[in-house]
Each structure stands twice: as C-alpha cells, then as structure tokens.
C-alpha cells in the first residue's frame, strides 16, 4: 500500500487513517529524498519545488547553504529575538540581584559609598547578560530545532550518511498536501539528481 497515494491528514474519507501508525508492521512513507552533487543544485531544486507548490520540504547539506534556506522562504531565523530576550533577562536579574543583596539583603558600608553604588554593579550585570545570551542561544536552538533527537526517519536512508560528508539532499515529506509518490518522484527526477529514494518512517 505504500506504493499508492499516501494521503495527508483530512484526506481519504472512508479509509482507515493510515497516517497515524495504526498498524506498525506496515511501513509508512516519510518522504522522497533526492541526492544532489552540489549545494547550488540543491538550492535550485528547492526553488523549483517551492514554485511547484510543495510546502513540507527541507534541504540537507554538510555545511550551511544560505540559498537553500532562502528558497525555503526562511529568510530570517527567530534566534535573534530569542537571544535578545535571554540576554535582557539575565542583565536585569543580575543587576537586581546585586542591588537587592548589597542594598537590602546584606548591606555593607564599603569606604562610605552609598549602598546602591550602581557603577560597581556594571561588570557583573554585563557578565550575566553574556552568560544568559549564550545559554539561551544554545538551548533555544536545540529546543526550536527539536534537538536532541536521535531517531529521525531520514537516518533510515543509507545515502543520507553522506549529508554530513559530500552530498546535498532535498526531502519532500509525505505530509505535504501535494505529495503523491509517483508524481513527486517524477518531479524530483526531472531536477537531475544523482538518485531519488523513498524513505520509510
């Protein structure tokens, strides 16, 4: 049955919904994976696929290829605001912590300076900002990308090992409303990839 159309959610009335792994023994298609030799070819293929109306697709490469992300209509990542908020939170909490501790919590008279001697709180405020920016950056990246995730269907493909080596891939996922195994395969073949294979869940 995997060779026939794999309907997206909401399709195939009258059939048992075979999308939700109802029968684990029956393999479900994850998508079609096309392998390319260069990053430019990959980016070009994504452009074509997006123009053809595919929406659930992604490119994979051993090093960042900016054109691929552009073609996927992902011109700007959300990490900037995330890290900004993280840094701002760290700076504010660092400053408030020092203010509270040295003004109210445990006030010490150091050389007759006022308890709220804010200039001496600047270095730690700065350090706290840098620390929280970096930590939100790393953990935010992981969270937004859904990592760490050790079992991805794409890892079922033997070819995909080369995605971290010397090949560039485009995967059109079966969840795409426009996905049709035969048609999509023909479409990908027309883009002159090295190979196209069906990847199972």
């Amino acid at each position, binding site marked *: 049955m995997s060779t026939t159309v794999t309907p997206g959610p909401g399709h195939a009335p009258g059939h048992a919904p075979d999308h939700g792994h109802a029968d684990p023994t029956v393999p479900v298609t994850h998508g079609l994976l096309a392998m390319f030799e260069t990053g430019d070819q990959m980016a070009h293929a994504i452009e074509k696929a997006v123009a053809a109306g595919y929406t659930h697709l*992604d490119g994979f490469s051993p090093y*960042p290829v900016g054109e691929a*992300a552009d073609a996927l209509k992902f011109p700007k990542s959300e*990490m900037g605001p995330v890290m900004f908020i993280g840094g701002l939170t760290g700076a504010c909490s660092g400053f408030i912590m020092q203010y509270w501790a040295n003004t109210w919590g445990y006030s010490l008279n150091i050389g007759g300076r006022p308890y709220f001697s804010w200039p001496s709180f600047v270095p730690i405020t700065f*350090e706290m900002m*840098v*620390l929280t920016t970096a930590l939100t950056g790393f953990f935010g990246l992981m969270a937004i990308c859904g990592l760490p995730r050790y079992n991805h269907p*794409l890892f079922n493909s033997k070819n995909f090992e080369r*995605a971290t080596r*010397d090949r560039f891939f485009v995967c059109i996922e079966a969840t795409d409303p426009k996905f049709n195994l035969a048609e999509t395969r023909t479409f990908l073949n027309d883009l002159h990839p090295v190979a196209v294979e069906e990847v199972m869940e």
Partner: protein
Amino acid sequence: MATAELPPARSTELPLEPEMHPLVRNKHDLVSVGDAIGEVVLKGEHPRGWWIGFLAGFAMLQILAIAVCWLFYVGVGIWGINVPVAWGFAIVNFVWWIGIGHAGTLISAILLLLHQKWRTSINRFSEAMTIFAVMCAGLFPLLHMGRPWFFYWLYPFPNVAGVWPQFRSPLTWDVFAVTTYFTVSLVFWYLGLVPDLAALRDQARKRWQQIAYGLLALGWRGSAIHWRRYEKVYLILGGISTPLVLSVHTVVSFDFAVSIVPLWHATIFPPFFVSGAIYSGFAMVVAIALPVRKWYKLEDFFSDHHMDIMGKVMLATGFLVTYGYFSEAWMAWYGHTLYEWGTTMERMFGPYGWSYWCLIGFNCVFPLTFLWSKKIRTSPFWMELICISVLIGMWFERYVIVITLAREYVPAGWGTYAPTFWDYATMIGSLGLFLFLFFLFLRYLPMISITEMRELLPKKQGGGGGHSIMENAP
C-alpha cells in the same frame, strides 16, 4: 602606442573577493577534508609525538595530584606565601593561564566578526586550549582559598546566615567573569563541534564510535532551516564573546588596579593586560600547533602562511605590551610620586630586579627583534623558540607585578617572597593538566573544524566558495 601597453582585460580574471592566499593547500575536496581531519580521530593511530606529549602531561598531572593532596592535608602554609606577598604563585599562575586562555575566543569570535578566514585552521584547537587553560587558571584561586570545599561561598545563594557576596569587590567580579568566560567558551566550542560530530558519526565504522559521536552530535542532520538558525546563534555568540574576551582580562586587571598599591593603581592596566593576554595566547597556540601539525601532517590546513599572520599579531601585541612597560615607568617618573618612582626603582634594581630584566628580555627584546623578519615568522624552529620565550616572558610579567607587594610604601612593611617546592610542583602540575587534557582532545575530537574547512573550499572543489560559518545568517 600607449594602449598597447595596457594589460589584457582584467575584469574576468579577477576573483570577486581579493583572495591573497589559498588557505587550504593542495586540491582538497569535501571527502578528502573529512578524511584528513576525521580519520586522525577515527583510526586512532597516533604518532610517537602524541604519546610523548600525552605521557609527559600525565606524569606531570600526578605531581599536581600529590601537591594538591598535601595542600589539603597541611594547608596553604606549604606555599611560600606570607605577608606582604600573600598571593604569590597562585595569582601569578592564575593570571598567566587566564591570559593564555584568551587566544581561543579571540580567534573564534573577533576574527570571525572581522571575516578573517585563516582563523578556520586554528579556531577549534585554540578554543579547546581556552577551555583547558581556564580550567588550570580556576584551580589556583580555589586552592589558594585554604578551604576549597567552601568554594560555593563565592557565588550568591540564599543561606541560613543571610550573607551575600560583596558585589563592589573586583574579586567578586572576577568570579563572575571567569565563570561566564568558561561557560560561554564551552558553549561556543561545543556548538562548533556539533556538525563535526555528526560528520564523524556518519564517517565512523566502529560501533562504539558511531554510538559515542552519535550521542554527542545531538541528532544533527544538517537541515537548511537548522543551519540558518545555527549560523545566527554562532554569529551572535561571536558578537557577545568579543566584549566578553576583553572584559575578562579587564576584570582580572581590576583585581590589581582597584587597589592602592603603587604601580598597580594605574588606568593602563586593563588594555595592558588584554594585549598581554593575546600575546601569550597566540604564543601558546603557535607553540602547540607547530609540533602537532608536523606529527599529524596537517600542513595543508595550518600552513606557513598562518604562522606568518600569527607572528604579525604577536608582533603587534608585543609592542602594545612593551608600550605598557614603558608607560608604567614613564608615569612613575613624570608623576613625581615618591612611592611610584621608588617602587619602580625597586622593581628594576631591587632584590627581584633580575625578574624584571628576564621579563624585558624574554618578552620584548628577543621576540620583537626577530618577529620582524618574514623568514623567521615562517620558520617553525624560530617560531617555536620565540613562542616559548614569550610564554616565559609573560609569566615573568605577572611575577614582577605580584612581587611588587614585597616593596611598597614604608620600609617597615617590606618583606621577601620565595616560592617553595610545592609552589613549583603545583605550577608544573597545572601544565600537566593542560597537556593531558589537550592530548586527549587531539585523540578524541577533530582538531580542525571539518565543516568550516569544507565551506572554505572553492566552489569547484565542492565547497561554499570561501564562505565562513556565519555569512549566511541575516
């Protein structure tokens, strides 16, 4: 005819970016880059040099273990510290190691923002060096505490006594600066490693390697969307690490400059410390890179061209440091203060004067005479010699600064300081810890960034045409 003299049409011949020098020698492609760097780790065949370095480090690490055990048993009295020189070797070594730890983040952050692509060859292992050097540095204040098991008292935490740290003290700033520096360097380093670990996972043939690198790679699969986010994070980390690097040694210099000890209480201390840190950090990077590239035959990636550039950076920072020494003496003389000038005279010609002249010799005269010559900058033997000289010189610089305490205001408060056997043992032991960790790193992690090297290759060799890791991140 004048027109006949004109060169042929140049526009098509010129590359878009003026590429001065090929940064990767020989015809590498994506696979050969991965093999050259990755197989060092995956094959696990190590040259004799690796064993020598590793075993030397391991032996010295045992000295550290013995010294620390004895310290915990007896107390800090086994060191030569006393009033007036209450800091002694502990702070000398702390500042020296922190300084060495500056090169890594400088190379990975500042040079990243400045689009200095030659950094790609050295950023990974200099970041590793940073982490290990900061570990060694952190050891000394902890051991110097006397009761290191109470180290967490340095941090603000709610406690029964209701006591909070004194946030106006540079020593408290130092705790935050060094902790932040260590954490951010670790995050930066690991983030850079993730795609490489994924590459190793897919390249590995042994089962345990596939599992180990697979776990560490966090399931990275090189998705275009992930890459875009990744590059943005990398760029911002570079941006915030740049002021961080400068802030760390600035805060370390505040430990001295905020006091009222003559010659410490100087506004030049922060820039002077930062340039000294870069000087010694670069010296350590080159001193280690030279033997390593020879043992592992990585001349294609770390070429003489790299050595030449690093030599130039050392020349520049060396002169900044020398200007610092000059300025200290000048300010003391021109300021017409009895104590400043008196302490300067004691520093140069007092009982510890020999260490001042060692500093000038090792740090200024020898390196700055020879670094001018390109022939010397590209000669491994000479560069190794110069770098070791700089490392010794920078150690003496901190020694000279700390020993100032022996001769400050009133002669009645003067004293002497002499390190003991255990001071030397801890110092050599910290070097052992550094070497031990560094050689383990060479053994288990890719010492050059495979991903960035691939991206740096020309397009016709499969690469990204000289892009560097954050240039696709709007």
